[in-house]
C-alpha cells in the first residue's frame, strides 16, 4: 500500500476487467473522487463504476474502514491517504 494514496480492492468480476489485478491505488478526497481518478486512468473499469449519465452506479457498495457507504453518499464521504476501500455490489440469491 502506498502512503499517499487510497487502496481500492476490486470485486472478483471486475478483476477480469483489470487483467486479474485484485486492487488498485487511487488518489482523492472522497470515495467518488477516488473512483473518478480510477475511471480516468482505466476507461474500461470506468464503464462499470459510472452509468450513462456519469453518476456512480447505484448498486455499487463501498466498505470504507469498516463503514458501509452507498452510492448516494460517495460524493460526500471523505477518505484519507492510506485508507482502504473495498468495492462490492448488491447481492441476490440464485
Amino acid at each position, binding site marked *: 500500500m502506498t502512503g499517499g494514496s487510497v487502496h481500492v480492492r476490486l470485486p472478483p*468480476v471486475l478483476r*477480469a476487467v483489470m487483467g486479474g489485478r485484485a486492487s488498485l491505488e487511487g488518489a482523492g478526497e472522497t470515495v467518488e473522487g477516488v473512483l473518478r481518478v480510477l475511471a480516468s486512468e482505466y476507461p474500461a473499469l470506468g464503464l462499470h463504476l459510472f*452509468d*450513462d449519465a456519469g453518476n456512480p452506479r447505484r*448498486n*455499487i457498495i463501498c466498505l470504507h474502514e469498516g463503514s458501509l457507504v452507498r452510492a448516494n453518499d460517495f460524493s460526500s464521504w471523505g477518505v484519507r491517504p492510506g485508507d482502504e476501500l473495498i468495492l462490492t455490489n448488491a447481492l441476490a440469491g440464485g
Partner: protein
Amino acid sequence: MSVTLVVGTPKGAAILQSDDRKSWREDFVLRGWPVTASVRDDSGRVYVAVNSPNYGVAIFTSEDFREWRQLPSAPRYRPEDRGNPEHHRIVSQMDFGGVLKEGGRFVDQIWTLHFAHGTLYAGVSEAGIFTSRDRGESWQPVDGFNEHPTRSSWVPGFGGLGAHTILTDAEDPERVWVGVSAAGFFRSDDGGRTWTPKNAGVNGDTGQCVHSVTHDPRNASTLYRQEHRGVHRSDDGGDTWTVIEDGLPVTELSDGHRCSFGFPSVMDRKSGNVFVVPLDGDNYRFPRDGKLAVYRTSNGRPWEPKTKGLPDNCFTAVLRGSMAADQLEPGGIYFGTASGTVFGSADCGESWTAIATGLPRITHVEAYAR
C-alpha cells in the same frame, strides 16, 4: 473443420468446441458476467457482450476464446437522452432500481451484436442501435433510429424495450433491418439515416412484438419472422408479410389469437432450411405437453417436426437468441434451453444430441466454424 459455440448465461459463457461435431470440449469463461450476445468479425476476432445489474454493459473480445480483453468503450446514451418510464419500471424490477433515474435513457443490455461491411452493430435496451467503425474501440448512436418519430408509440415487452435483431444485406451496405420488442421491424435503405416500419400483414405499423427474424444476407429480401403472433415470411425485404404456419402447431394466445408462438428462428444458408421451436402459447411458454420439437421448412414447403433425440418431458423454453447455425455442410444447428441444456444436430435437424447439460439459463447461442 471445427466449431466453437458461445453459450451465454447469466453466470458467464460456456465455450463448447468440437473438431467433428460429435465430441465436445467445454470451458466456462467470463465468470460472473451475464453474457447476452456475441459476433465474429472478418478478421476472426470474437466480441462478447456482457451486462451486469451492478456494473453495467461492456464488450469483451478474444482471438482464441480463451484470453479475453474488455474494450475500453461500450454503447452508451447521452445524458440528455430521454427514456421510456415503462421500460425503466420493468428493468428496475430486475436490478434493484439500479438504472432507474428520473427521465434518463440507459443502455442496460446489449441484446445483439452484428458485423457487416466493416461495421460492428449493437442492438440494445432501452431500444436503440449503435455502430462502431473501429472494431469496438468507440461507439456512435444511430440517431435516425434511436430518435425515430414513432418512438413515443414503442412499448416494452415482458423483457423490456429491446432492439434484439439486426440484419444486413451482403450486396447493399446501405440496407439494414432492426427488430424491436415491442415496436416492430424497421428497415433503412440509406445506411441508417432514415427508417421505415415494415410490418404490413402482421398487425399495424408499430407496436408488434417481433421475437426474431432470420435470412440469408446474400438473398437478403427473403425474411422469416417469428412474431409473438405467429410465423411470417416476406419476399420483398419486409414490405409485406404472409403467415406461413402450414405444419406448425398452432395454439391460442392470451388474447384469443391462434398462431404458432415461439422465440428463435435460424436459417441454414446452404440448404435454405429455416428452423423454429414452437412453444405452447404465451401463457405456458414451454413445448406443448413437454414434447420438445424443432420445426424445419425450406422453399415454401410445410413445416416438419424434427424430434429424434429430443426429450418429451421438457417443460422449459428456448429463448430468442438461443439458437444458431454453423453454416457448414451439412448444416449444424444448435440451441440452448432455459434450463441449461444445449442440443446440437450435425445433420441439419434430422437428429439431435444433448452436447452440454447443467448450465444456467441459456440466453444466447452462436456458432463459429473454421
